[in-house]
């Protein structure tokens, strides 16, 4: 169905900075998330390149120990909290309403609030670099290395407060997504007809708003230790550093699935479209994700196998961790089943999605290896684990993001990314990640510790470190190709039809890019793959009948004002409490204004 020309032209004409600042349109917020996340991806990538440059040769002196520690800490924080999560949130923002046939999310202004909190929180978290004292104690921030005595600078304050702000941002987004998916589905869109990507978003939303509170508590306790004389994690006062690890990983492990499940959702959309057949084992796919989410709560201590955990909890956490391999395996087999018997088109999106399967399997398998505590005692804190997380998060989460970008770019921007450049990017990326991360397995088995800024020659580490560094540069080049592709594509006219790929899901039923109100008429869902069902049964989506009033939520500046107030409150803790005092009335004012603002 084509968009009726002239219906609510607000999206096309309403431009300018102010319209972006005050927007509550889920698509614009998604775009903001996408661009901000991508910029942070470049920052995090630059940090990684610097780290790899230092490690290319033994006894290297490119970067000193202090800067090195800041770089690897901020690389992890940037990639996890500022790049991957927001870029997957960008897809969620864009696609939840479109895929479930809604006109917007349940709470459009909360959506804007979550973006602006992320925007300011990201700047705050990274601002430590401006003062030469970014957080440098690892993203896991194990106490007591992070207490005042061992981390006297402001780096850890940027960390605790920055993560608290980002935590609120994620909470707001997760609650909003969950309500939207549960309650805003188009007629006929039952839970078991939801696209798998939407299911994954629903699962991670629950994980997020349930897992963030323990982290919040840990961060609050750490902040109290640093500023208000408590001894939660300081041994001399009766504190226990292990409690930090428990609270952190209660959050930290679900967080891993928060990062990877959306990518799994994306490729579960891409594989069927380009295989031209439905997803194999939809129900198993959904239940596997729910099982993974459930189990992810009972495995956190596998990050702590070497801390002296007692044998019985060690065995329990080990067993639970191994069990996660089962639903993950089911997912991998089902993707393979989706390919089987298809008629596969190798678009760039499909190349990324297909390569996800074996590459993610590498990361998944090494994860299962680490679930055995005795083996983990040989791998923990070596490059073996670095290899594992990068195979999961780069060739898993990031490859999913790239696949999604190529797949949904026509829908988002009305233009098709150049496939030739896309394939260049894919192959460079594919070669780069394997060069960069596969040798890390060898480094890990050769005993190379994580987080060291220098190492001696003659330990069997020299060659593979050089290979890995070369791989990092190749990844860098592939990302540059993508940027080139982006600018080249954006200079072309918008020419994409509603459904350029012949995909089955609802977002392809509206124009590319969609109008501000998403759908001229709320679509009707008759099957799990609605557009294919309609096509095969010669059915039509309902057409506009006369002059229907479509409600569009008006723009609001309260989200950004409130986020700015929150930023001031955090800045005050690191500078002067007067600034905090200034932030509080701003927040109260914006809550009040928000509550009284008419929404129609």
């Amino acid at each position, binding site marked *: 169905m084509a968009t009726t020309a002239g219906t609510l032209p607000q999206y096309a004409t309403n431009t300018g900075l102010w319209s972006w600042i005050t927007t509550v349109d889920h698509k614009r917020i998604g775009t903001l998330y996408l661009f901000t996340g991508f910029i942070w991806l470049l920052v995090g990538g630059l940090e990684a390149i610097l780290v790899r440059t230092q490690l290319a040769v033994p006894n290297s002196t490119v970067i000193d120990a202090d800067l090195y520690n800041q770089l690897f800490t901020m690389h992890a924080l940037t990639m996890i909290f500022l790049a991957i999560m927001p870029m997957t949130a960008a897809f969620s923002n864009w696609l939840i309403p479109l895929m479930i046939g809604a006109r917007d999310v349940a709470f459009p202004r909360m959506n804007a609030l979550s973006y602006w909190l992320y925007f300011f929180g990201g700047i705050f978290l990274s601002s430590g670099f401006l003062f030469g004292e970014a957080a440098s104690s690892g993203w896991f921030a194990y106490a007591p290395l992070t207490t005042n005595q061992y981390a006297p600078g402001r780096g850890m304050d940027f960390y605790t407060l920055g993560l608290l702000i980002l935590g609120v941002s994620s909470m707001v987004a997760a*609650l909003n997504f969950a309500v939207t998916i*549960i309650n805003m589905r188009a007629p006929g869109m039952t839970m078991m007809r939801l696209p798998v990507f939407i299911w994954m978003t629903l699962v991670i939303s629950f994980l997020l708003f*349930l*897992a963030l509170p323990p982290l919040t*508590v840990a961060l609050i306790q750490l902040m109290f230790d640093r500023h208000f004389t408590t001894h939660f994690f300081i041994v001399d006062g009766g504190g226990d550093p292990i409690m930090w690890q428990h609270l952190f990983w*209660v959050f930290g492990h679900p967080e891993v699935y928060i990062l990877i499940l959306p990518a799994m959702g994306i490729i579960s959309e891409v594989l069927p479209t380009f295989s031209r057949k439905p997803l194999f084992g939809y129900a198993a796919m959904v239940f596997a994700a729910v099982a993974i989410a459930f189990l992810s709560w009972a495995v956190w201590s596998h990050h702590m196998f070497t801390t002296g955990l007692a044998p019985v909890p060690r065995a329990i956490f080990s067993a639970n961790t191994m069990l996660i391999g089962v639903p993950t395996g089911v997912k991998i087999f089902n993707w393979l089943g989706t390919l089987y018997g298809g008629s596969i088109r190798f678009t760039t999106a499909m190349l990324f999605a297909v390569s996800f399967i074996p590459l993610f399997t590498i990361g998944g398998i090494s994860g299962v290896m680490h679930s055995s505590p005795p083996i983990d005692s040989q791998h923990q804190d070596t490059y073996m684990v670095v290899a594992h997380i990068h195979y999961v998060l780069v060739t898993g989460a990031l490859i999913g993001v790239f696949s999604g970008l190529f797949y949904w770019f026509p829908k988002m921007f009305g233009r098709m990314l150049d496939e030739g450049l896309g394939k260049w990017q894919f192959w460079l990326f594919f070669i780069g990640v394997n060069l960069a991360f596969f040798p890390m397995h060898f480094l890990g088995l050769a005993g190379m510790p994580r987080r060291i800024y220098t190492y001696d020659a003659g330990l069997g580490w020299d060659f593979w470190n050089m290979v890995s560094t070369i791989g990092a540069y190749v990844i860098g080049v592939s990302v540059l190709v993508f940027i080139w592709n982006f600018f080249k594509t954006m200079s072309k006219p918008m020419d994409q039809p509603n459904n350029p790929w012949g995909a089955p899901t609802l977002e392809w039923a509206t124009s590319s890019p969609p109008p501000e109100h998403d759908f001229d008429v709320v679509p009707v869902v008759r099957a799990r793959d609605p557009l294919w069902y309609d096509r095969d049964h010669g059915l039509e989506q309902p057409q506009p009948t006369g002059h229907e009033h479509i409600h569009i939520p008006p723009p609001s500046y309260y989200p950004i004002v409130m986020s700015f107030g929150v930023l001031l409150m955090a800045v005050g803790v690191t500078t002067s409490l007067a600034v905090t005092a200034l932030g509080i009335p701003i927040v109260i004012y914006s809550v009040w204004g928000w509550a009284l603002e008419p929404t*129609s």
Partner: protein
Amino acid sequence: MAHAQAAAGHGAPVHATSTGTDNRKLLMWLFLGSECLFFASLIASHLVYRSRQLVPPFPFESEIPIDVYNGLSETVKHMCEDLGNGFADCHGILDIPVTSTSTFVLLFSSLAMVLAVYGAQNGRPMMMKGWLLATIIAGVVFLGFQVYEFRLFAMEGLGLSTNQFGASFFVLTGFHGTHVGVGVLYLMSMLAASFRRNGLGPETGFHIEIAGLYWHFVDIVWIIIFTVVYLIPV
């Protein structure tokens, strides 16, 4: 659809939702689920840490070796007495009668809140306003008790850095108190808004009910805290 648009003069437009539940109410319940994890983490920290007391003030009466007693500062020493057998006996710092009173006040505030919701949902604005005011007053009285308790503990020598009981107790009850404080502000805004010309609009009952959910949740958290922190000894 049109009917919903017209009626929704205030608040977000009301759609017929997929599960038939209101978005905002669902949001509040999910948020409260998240709060369960927040308080579970705080309570767990408190329970783990309060058993690691080396120096008084202790929450409950306990005996300490005499050399620990001799090393105590004067502010704390008056809480303990030398038993003469190499040990000293220290009073528990928790004042159960006082806290029981404040617990009843909070429990009463829940009754007041539910009556305010009843008034709001049954078109009885005066009943709603009156009970809303009663809820707010009870909330403020509860906070008063908490300030009194914190001050008392501080005078008896219990601070954030004194021992792990102090740190985890103040952080746990402090965050609960903050939730009560936010609730008081929330209800005060509701009360103030209800005096405008249009009051809280056509959805008054709904708005008060949502506020009530939050308020009752803060109350049930206190039910747990009262039992595990105050009534069950270390």
